[in-house]
C-alpha cells in the first residue's frame, strides 16, 4: 500500500515498561521500515519525559501534559485531549490513528475525536475482561461507547476477539435457536510477536538436575496459590528438581512461607524483580517454564520462554492454548493435582531428551515475526482507509443504541465534542498552523533503519 502517516495513541508507552508498551514500539518501528510515517502520542512522565522526543528509528513521540491517575492510565474526561490531538493530527498530516489498550483513556478519546478531522481509526485490544465485577462493567461501558466510532478493531488472540466482540457489541445476532453470533467484518486477529534473537537457547546442560523457571508478577491473577500448593509436592516427588522464581508482588510472602515451612531453601531460589534485559539469562538457566496464570489474553512470557528453548507447562486459560503447537507445551487445569501431573509429564519429556531446545527456537522463529505483524496490520489499515465513512447522523444513531441511560449521555458528549471542534476551528484556524515537513528522503531513511536493525541482530 502507499505510505501513509499513522499516529499511535496510548497511555502506555516508553519509559513505562510492559507488554503494550513494547508492542506499540515494535509495531511502529516495523511500520517505519515499511515506509510509513509513524508518531506516538502518550501522556508525559514528569519531570524528564515531557514535550517531544525522538526514538530510534525516527519515531517521534508526543508527551502530552496529562496526569495519570492509576497504573499509568489518565482520567477519561472525553474533551481535554481534543485541542492537542487536533493540532498534532493537522500539523503531522495524519491519515489514520491507531489506539491501543482498552484501559487507555487517551486512546479512546483519540477514537472519539479523530472522525471530526476525517481521520480513520483502528483500535487494538490487548487484554481480557470479565463481565461480573464493577471495574469491568464500568470500563466495558466506556469502551462500547467509543467502539461505535471505530473503523477496525484488532485483537491479539481468537479468545481475545470473542471477548472484545462481546464487550464492545461488535456482533450481530441471528434469531435462530441457539442464537448464532456473527462478528463484524472489521474485527481482526493479529498476534503479538517477539524478537527471537533476544531469546537464544543456551547449549544443553547435564540432565542431572532439572530446573523449573517461574517468572511473573507475584499477584493473585498469576495463580501464585497454585504454585505455592504444587511446588512442595513436586520437590518431594522429584528429588532432582529445583525452582527458580523471579518477580515481585504481594504474593511473595506466601512463597517465602511455603519455602520455610517445607525447608526448601536450597531447592527454591527467589530472584526478586527481574529486569526485561535479564529475562533471557534467567530463562536459559532452566529447562521447564511454568505458568499458572488464571487469565491471560496472549501470554508473551510463555512465548519468550519457549523461544529460549524451555518446555512449557501452563494452565489452560484465555488465549494460551492458541499460541504454541501441542508438542511444545503441556496444559493443566487450574487445580493443584493437575498442575502436579502436567509438571510430572514435562519432567519426563525433558529428562528423556524428547524436547530439543535448538529445534524449538528455530520453530518459534518461523511462527512469530514483527515484520509479518506489521504487514498484517497494514492490511487492516488499508481496509480501514477504504471503508465507507460513517456520517454524523449514523454515529448519533449508533450512539443512541447504547442504552436508555448511556445512549443519550454519549450522544450529548458527541454533540458537545462537535461544537468544541467548531470552536477550535474558529479560534485556532488551520491556516495559521506550522506544518511538519520532512526534509529527508524516505528511501535513505528506510535504508538506515534496515542497517541499524541488522546491527542489532548481529
Amino acid at each position, binding site marked *: 500500500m502507499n505510505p501513509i502517516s499513522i499516529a499511535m495513541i496510548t497511555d502506555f508507552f516508553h519509559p513505562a515498561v510492559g507488554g503494550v508498551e513494547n508492542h506499540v514500539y515494535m509495531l511502529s518501528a516495523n511500520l517505519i521500515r515499511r515506509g510509513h510515517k509513524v508518531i506516538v502520542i502518550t501522556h508525559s512522565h514528569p519531570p524528564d519525559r515531557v514535550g517531544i522526543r525522538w526514538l530510534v528509528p525516527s519515531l517521534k513521540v508526543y508527551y502530552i501534559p496529562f496526569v495519570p491517575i492509576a497504573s499509568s492510565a489518565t482520567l477519561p474526561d472525553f474533551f481535554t485531549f481534543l485541542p492537542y490531538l487536533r493540532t498534532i493530527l493537522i500539523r503531522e498530516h495524519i491519515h489514520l490513528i491507531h489506539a491501543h489498550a482498552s484501559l487507555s483513556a487517551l486512546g479512546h478519546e483519540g477514537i472519539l475525536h479523530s472522525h471530526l478531522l476525517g481521520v480513520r481509526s483502528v483500535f487494538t485490544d490487548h487484554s481480557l475482561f470479565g463481565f461480573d465485577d464493577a471495574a469491568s462493567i464500568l470500563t466495558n461501558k466506556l469502551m462500547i461507547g467509543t467502539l461505535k466510532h471505530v473503523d477496525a478493531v484488532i485483537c491479539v488472540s481468537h479468545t481475545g476477539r470473542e471477548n472484545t466482540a462481546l464487550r464492545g457489541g461488535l456482533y450481530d445476532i441471528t434469531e435462530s435457536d441457539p442464537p448464532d*453470533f456473527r*462478528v463484524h467484518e472489521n474485527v481482526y486477529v493479529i498476534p503479538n510477536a517477539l524478537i527471537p534473537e533476544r531469546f537464544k537457547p543456551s547449549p544443553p546442560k547435564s540432565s542431572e538436575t532439572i530446573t523449573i523457571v517461574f517468572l511473573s508478577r507475584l499477584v493473585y491473577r498469576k495463580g501464585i496459590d497454585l504454585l505455592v500448593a504444587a511446588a512442595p509436592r513436586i520437590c518431594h516427588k522429584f528429588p532432582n528438581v529445583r525452582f527458580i522464581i523471579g518477580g515481585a508482588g504481594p504474593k511473595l510472602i506466601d512463597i517465602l512461607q511455603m519455602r520455610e515451612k517445607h525447608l526448601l531453601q536450597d531447592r527454591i531460589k527467589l530472584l526478586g524483580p527481574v529486569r526485561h534485559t535479564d529475562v533471557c539469562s534467567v530463562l536459559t538457566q532452566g529447562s521447564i517454564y511454568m505458568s499458572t496464570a488464571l487469565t491471560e489474553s496472549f501470554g508473551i512470557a510463555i512465548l519468550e520462554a519457549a523461544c529460549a528453548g524451555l518446555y512449557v507447562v501452563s494452565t489452560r486459560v484465555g488465549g494460551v492454548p*492458541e499460541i504454541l503447537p501441542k508438542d511444545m507445551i503441556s496444559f493443566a487445569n487450574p487445580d493443584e493435582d493437575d498442575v502436579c501431573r502436567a509438571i510430572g509429564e514435562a519432567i519426563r519429556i525433558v529428562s528423556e531428551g524428547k524436547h530439543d531446545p535448538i529445534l524449538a527456537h528455530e520453530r518459534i522463529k518461523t*511462527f512469530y515475526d514483527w515484520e509479518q505483524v506489521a504487514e498484517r496490520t497494514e492490511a487492516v489499515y488499508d481496509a480501514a482507509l477504504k471503508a465507507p465513512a460513517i456520517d454524523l447522523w449514523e454515529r448519533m444513531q449508533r450512539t443512541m443504541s447504547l442504552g436508555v441511560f448511556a445512549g443519550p449521555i454519549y450522544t450529548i458528549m458527541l454533540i458537545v465534542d462537535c461544537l468544541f471542534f467548531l470552536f477550535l476551528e474558529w479560534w485556532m484556524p488551520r491556516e495559521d498552523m506550522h506544518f511538519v515537513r520532512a526534509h529527508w528522503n524516505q528511501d535513505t531513511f528506510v535504508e538506515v533503519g534496515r542497517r541499524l536493525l541488522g546491527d542489532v541482530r548481529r
Partner: protein
Amino acid sequence: MSKEWEKVLWKKQAQPDNYVVPGSFLRSLRRNANFRPYTYWPLVLLSCTITQHLATIFIFVSVFVRLKQQSLHPPTLIWVSIACFSTGYLFWELLDTTGANGEHRRASRIKTVKSSILIFLALMSLSPVLKTLTAATSSDSIWALSAVLFGVSALLADYSAISRGSPEVHERLTSVLSINAAISASVVLASRLADDLAVFALVLFSVQAFALFPRLRRRLGLCHPAIRLAVTIALFSLSVVTTWSLSLTVTRIYSAVQLGVTFVAPAFLVWAQNFKNEIRGPWDVAVPKVNL
C-alpha cells in the same frame, strides 16, 4: 500452509485475519450457567430476619421514648431485660447444634454467667458517665446521629443463618460494624435520659436487643419455618403496638416499610430475574483449586 482454518495463532493460515468459521464464533459462551432462580415464598421467609431487625429497632426506640417521657419505670425495664436474657439463653441452649460434650458445655455456661455479671456491673458503674456523655451536644444532632447509626446497623447486619452442624462461624466485619453502630446509637440516646438508673436500663436493653438477639436470630434460622414466622409476627406486632400509642403517622410509615421489605421486595427480585444475563467464557479468571 493448510487450507483448513484452525483456532491457533502460530500457524500461517490461508484465510484473512478477520476470518471466522461460520457458526463457530462464541460457541464456548455459556449463559446463566450457575443460575438458580429464586421463588417467592422462600424469599419472603428469608426476608423475615430483616423484618425482625427493623422491629427490634422500633421496639427499642419506643422504649426510649417512654423512658424519656418517664411513663416507663426504669426498674421494670431492667426486670424485662433480665427475663428476656433468661428466655433467650434458654432458647440458645436448646438450639445448640455444635454438639459439644457435657464438660465443655458446663465450662461455657460458667463463662457466660461470669461475663454477663461483668457486663451488668460495668454498665452500672459506667451509666453516670454515659448520662453526661453528650451533654454539650444539642438534642437535634443526637436524633439525627442515632437515626443514621440505626440505618447503618440495619444495612450492615448479618441476616444469614448459620449452617447446620458447623461450629460457630466467625462474625463478619460488617456484622460487627452493625452491632457497633446500634450500640453507639443507643448510647447517644441514653445520654439524653434524666437519671442514672434509666440510662443503665436502656443500655442494658440495647445490649440484649442488638448484641445478643442477632446471634440468637442466626441460630433461629435453622428452626422450622413456622417458628421463624411466629417470632417475626410476634416481634412485628409488639413493635406496632408499642409505636401505635406514641405516633400514628410513624406507625403507618413503619408498617408500610415492613410490608415493602417482606412482601414487595422479594416479588421485585423474582421479577428482576427475568433480566438475568450472566456470561461465562474462556476469558474468565479461573478459580484455582487447591487441596487443603
